[in-house]
């Protein structure tokens, strides 16, 4: 059985508020063709298994993966779907290889948030008998989490706004990013309030796009590229769904997931050893909370951590040099695009947003209300 999984290549569409000329399957086709070309393989002959990530309610069809085999040459092959976040599809694809079942796997995710109304979907994800009728969506729940975080640790909306300023600024160096801007903290604080303390700029915008990557055994990865990226560690963990069953100001699930991943990768001092982090901040405050959960700073110190400047593009440990989710990445694609960005950093393919000499990266995907579930992947070259 193989003991290492290599990521050979990654590809993305440009992310946009709408892509009216492309069918959902055409988003998948675009990134599939790109990643196959980048990996220098034959889709028909070399790809043994396709793992996709999409969600039925976003696509408006039961079994949203139904059109995937058509555009990935997947007929009469192994095909499976992960329905949460794209980082989990990468994890599942890696398991396909570690099991010895497949030597080369195409992993792909897509979502066109512009096709429907996301607040309804978010509301539908909430317990249908009891709390759904209260009108919760992820933004309203996020406001509760952000307030709890502020209240427990004294974190401020100004510190949340700094995340927006950093990420939208970083996005200017990312040709795949949807939204980029030169902003001040005041601009963010004065933008339209959605649910105090969350403004429209504190929330990820509506976005369409897709992401794909090729995973392979060590032997094949080495043959295909002189820059294979290895999955050195992985961990995932779930918190309870009901918000009253968790401490919203802490992220126990992410702490557990990251500790597992670091242990597997042999990381003892994350902030010293990791060169770059790409994480899933659906809301600005989450970046601060997730840096705590990833062990980059202590509990309650996410605010001080952004103040220190360490997470800036030129800081000690850049967080979201791509611009993160705040620059516009659709749900499901979110976590996979974090992995893809980390892969490009380690392959030295990140252009203007490249962290010089990056050798060890962390990619983080999450999903569910207030970050219920987390997946952490440690990647290295």
């Amino acid at each position, binding site marked *: 059985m193989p003991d290492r999984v290599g990521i050979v290549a990654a590809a993305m569409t440009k992310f946009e508020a709408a892509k009216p000329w492309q*069918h959902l399957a055409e988003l998948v086709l675009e990134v599939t063709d790109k990643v196959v070309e980048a990996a220098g393989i034959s889709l028909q002959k070399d790809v043994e298994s396709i793992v996709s990530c999409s969600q039925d309610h976003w696509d408006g069809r039961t079994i949203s993966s139904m059109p995937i085999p058509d555009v990935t040459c997947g007929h009469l092959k192994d095909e499976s779907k992960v329905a949460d976040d794209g980082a989990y599809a990468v994890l599942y694809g890696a398991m396909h290889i570690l099991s010895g079942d497949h030597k080369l796997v195409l992993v792909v995710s897509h979502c066109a948030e*512009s096709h429907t109304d996301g607040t309804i979907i978010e509301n539908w994800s909430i317990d249908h008998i009891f709390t759904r009728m209260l009108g919760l969506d992820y933004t309203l729940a996020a406001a509760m989490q952000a307030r709890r975080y502020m209240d427990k640790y004294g974190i401020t909306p100004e510190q949340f706004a700094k995340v927006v300023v950093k990420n939208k600024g970083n996005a200017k160096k990312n040709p795949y990013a949807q939204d980029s801007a030169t902003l001040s903290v005041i601009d963010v604080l004065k933008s339209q309030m959605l649910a105090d303390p969350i403004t429209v700029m504190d929330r990820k915008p509506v976005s369409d796009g897709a992401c794909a990557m090729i995973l392979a055994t060590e032997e094949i990865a080495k043959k295909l590229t002189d820059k294979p990226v290895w999955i050195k560690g992985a961990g995932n963990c779930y918190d309870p769904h009901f918000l009253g069953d968790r401490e919203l100001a802490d992220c126990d699930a992410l702490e557990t997931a990251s500790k597992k991943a670091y242990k597997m990768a042999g990381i003892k001092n994350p902030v010293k050893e990791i060169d770059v982090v790409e994480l899933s901040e659906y809301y600005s405050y989450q970046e601060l909370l997730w840096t705590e959960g990833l062990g980059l700073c202590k509990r309650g110190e996410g605010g001080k951590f952004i103040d220190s400047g360490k997470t800036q593009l030129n800081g000690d440990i850049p967080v979201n040099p791509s611009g993160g989710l705040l620059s516009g990445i659709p749900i499901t694609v979110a976590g996979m695009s974090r992995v893809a960005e980390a892969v490009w950093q380690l392959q030295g393919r990140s252009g203007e947003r490249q962290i010089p000499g990056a050798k060890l990266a962390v990619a983080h995907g999450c999903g569910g209300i207030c970050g219920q579930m987390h997946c952490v992947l440690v990647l290295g070259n």
Partner: protein
Amino acid sequence: MKAKPQLELIYLDMTLKMPFKWNTGEPLGEFFRELKANEKIYANQCPTCGRNYCPPANICTRDHSRCNEKDKWVAVGPKGTLLTFFICEQSFLIPTTGEMLEVPFSVGLVMLDGAPVVLQHCLQETDVEKIKPGMRVEAVFKPKEERKGNIFDIIHFKTIKE
């Protein structure tokens, strides 16, 4: 669990409604534009393996060859031969309209003239005695001003005698 007749049984009733506006994409969009503007049904063929697609495909599902060049599309139908069919006798809720379905109604797989492709659509005939696989049928289009660029720009396939 056993029924407990002495207790009130509590349900939660809710109807879930979801708006969608799906992109049709490159070949499917063009297929519908042709249906709407010109009453034309188009198909295309994989240049590698010869497999035919209706509506036209971007790429062959079997060998991933590109086959979307519009100048290689061929107009098929409107006549064709019935391959198989069903007749629905029991009404149910139409999810796209919320109304009960008028029965009987029938849908068939029609092998269109011009290329070996199958189009799935409604049949005008709903009498099981009068539908036979192998019979000839023809697409009936809506008047131009009523066509919207979707599959119901064709009303149904009617039985024809040749």
